[in-house]
């Protein structure tokens, strides 16, 4: 009797947590999963069962293929570059005797600022005619800046054919309006925003490396900083790197603010990333079924990517 009572008490203690977990975390995903098989729109009382049709569209229609491609490109560019920059900045700041806090604050500023607000600043800066970027570039035309950046002083390079010289002739690009540049510009802003965060994570990792290990490497004959980095610093940063890669990849997959504010997925869907597609389908066009289907694909991709990272990296990383 006593046993049954205690068991009941145990379940009733656990129950609220279980209920909350289901209602808040799992039910929304399940609802999205169910909706993704329908053509439901908000406000409709019924919906038709479409089975796999929504998913079929995602993997066959060219606009959705562009979506997958844009997201993949964005992640593949932003993750490695922002991690490499973050690590380099962390190593540089870690070696400073003084002024480290100042640099940390400055590099961390873009992380603290709301990306949407910063996107407006970038939009102004990148404006084709009145933006500071193109105005500065134009100011360099005809002078030594053009001579230098036309690379004519390197033997075997034709200065006339260089990017800077031809842009001076034909005008500088519409950074957010041309197919060639739009995604790269969005990536640049993404990197600008993300690397300060990675730097802070790596700085925390660096302080955890015992000084004696670096000194042991020096005594063992590691002459250059690169040798000591390869022998001690990089392997000891393994756990930090796993975390940084996972977080950056997920955050990059979730990019939305800059696309919404600057390009709205264009031109010709070159910046049509998944988050923006979900927003466009589900919110703007009220195609909940399609939006849900993309959401589920998005979730699957992130899960697969994270699992893959853990599997690949965990075997090689040493956790002490």
């Amino acid at each position: 009797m006593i046993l049954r009572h205690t068991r009941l008490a145990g379940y009733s203690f656990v129950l609220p947590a279980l209920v909350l977990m289901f209602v808040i975390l799992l039910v929304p995903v399940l609802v999205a999963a169910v909706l993704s098989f329908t053509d439901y729109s908000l406000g409709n009382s019924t919906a038709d069962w479409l089975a796999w049709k929504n998913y079929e569209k995602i993997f066959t229609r060219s606009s959705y293929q562009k979506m997958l491609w844009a997201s993949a490109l964005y992640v593949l560019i932003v993750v490695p570059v922002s991690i490499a920059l973050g690590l380099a900045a962390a190593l540089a700041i870690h070696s400073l005797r003084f002024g480290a806090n100042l640099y940390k604050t400055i590099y961390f500023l873009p992380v603290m600022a709301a990306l949407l607000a910063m996107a407006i600043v970038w939009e102004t800066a990148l404006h084709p005619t009145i933006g500071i970027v193109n105005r500065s570039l134009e100011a360099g035309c005809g002078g030594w800046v053009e001579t230098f950046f036309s690379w004519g002083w390197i033997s075997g390079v034709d200065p006339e054919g260089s990017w800077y010289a031809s842009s001076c002739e034909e005008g500088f690009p519409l950074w957010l309006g041309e197919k060639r540049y739009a995604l790269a510009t969005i990536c640049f802003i993404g990197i600008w925003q993300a690397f300060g965060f990675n730097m802070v994570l790596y700085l925390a990792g660096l302080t955890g490396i015992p000084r004696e290990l670096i000194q042991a490497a020096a005594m063992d004959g590691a002459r250059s900083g690169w040798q000591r980095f390869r022998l001690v610093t990089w392997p000891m940063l393994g756990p930090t790197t796993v975390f940084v890669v996972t977080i950056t990849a997920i955050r990059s997959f979730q990019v939305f603010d800059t696309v919404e504010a600057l390009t709205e997925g264009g031109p010709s869907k070159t910046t049509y990333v998944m988050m923006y597609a979900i927003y466009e389908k589900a919110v703007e066009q009220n195609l909940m079924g399609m939006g849900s289907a993309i959401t589920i694909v998005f979730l699957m991709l992130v899960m697969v990517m994270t699992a893959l990272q853990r599997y690949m990296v965990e075997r090689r990383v040493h956790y002490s």
Partner: protein
Amino acid sequence: MDIKLERIVKSFGSATAVDHVDLHIKAGEFLTLVGPSGCGKSTLLRIIAGLESQTSGSVSIGGDTVDAVRPSERNLAMVFQSYALYPHLSVRENMTVPLRLRDLSAVERMPLLGNLFPSRATKMHAIRSKIDQAAETLQISHLLERKPGELSGGQRQRVAVGRAMVRQPTAFLMDEPLSNLDAALRVHMRTEISGLHRSLKTTFIYVTHDQAEALTMSSRMAVMMDGQILQVDTPERIYRNPADLRVAQFVGSPRMNIFPGEVDSLGRIQTLEFSLDNVASEPVQGNVSVGFRPEHLRIVNGSGGHDFTLKVTHKENLGADYFIHGAVADGNHQVIVRATPEEVTGVSIGDELGIGCSKPSSLVFGDSNKRIDLRPGLTQ
């Protein structure tokens, strides 16, 4: 190769960690730098290693000044207090590191690409056999494939020594390598490290705060205090013939008993209630400190024949020996007397004991802690 330190000074801001140290370490000797924590011994070792740069003075190895030479080029091996093993590498890989860095060229060390060089295979083969040999000497052959995290403290210690050993350095620098081990293992490793020194015949420079390690292991020991070397000599002479009161008190366990004394115009020395047979050989007059090691005091039974009396406050049983702690009758001085178990049967706390001193063994120190030589008194 001899290692010479000349007028080494190291200051951190206004604090001086090492204060004009001169030291000549002979090839093949086991020199211990011993002193209380904060005396600058580790800093001095790190200056020899090149991990710390001296404020002034110079270090030379085998006649060549190495002040501008980086630690990686000095061919010294160091065993750290924390062992500093690379946690992500196996024991074998840990021991391979110094040899790989020394023997392989940059291209041969490259992952994958290095395998294309046939010279790499022969070199790696030679390295492998050296490591197997060292592992056998240290009895860690069965641990070679493990990671440092899977080893006990004593095993890590051996691996750290092994990593230092494989490349046959000019000298081994050891920074308190035994202080993270438990007491029994520490005593055991003392003999092992001494044995290693005998078989390798390489210079060992060993830093410790434990005077027992210094006494048992070294061929010479340098006692450091407040950034200065007070005395460098063999352990026997440091123990019997300390040049400084601070050396006398630091070396020897339990500590030497110190009594206040006075020297009169004839050089006769008076302390507590008795005077010494010998007189000061120098014309010093005034206050001195008179030191007796615990083994130079003995319990005198019956009345008379004792030099002073002692009230027992504590009996310390070490098995073969007893240490009797007590207060001298005037109540101001604590004394420790070494005695055999037979002598202390029947002695209990609170008893008054008569204590006799072995007067020829007394050590007298004058102003500024300097030792005063004694000679037989003329009045005898």
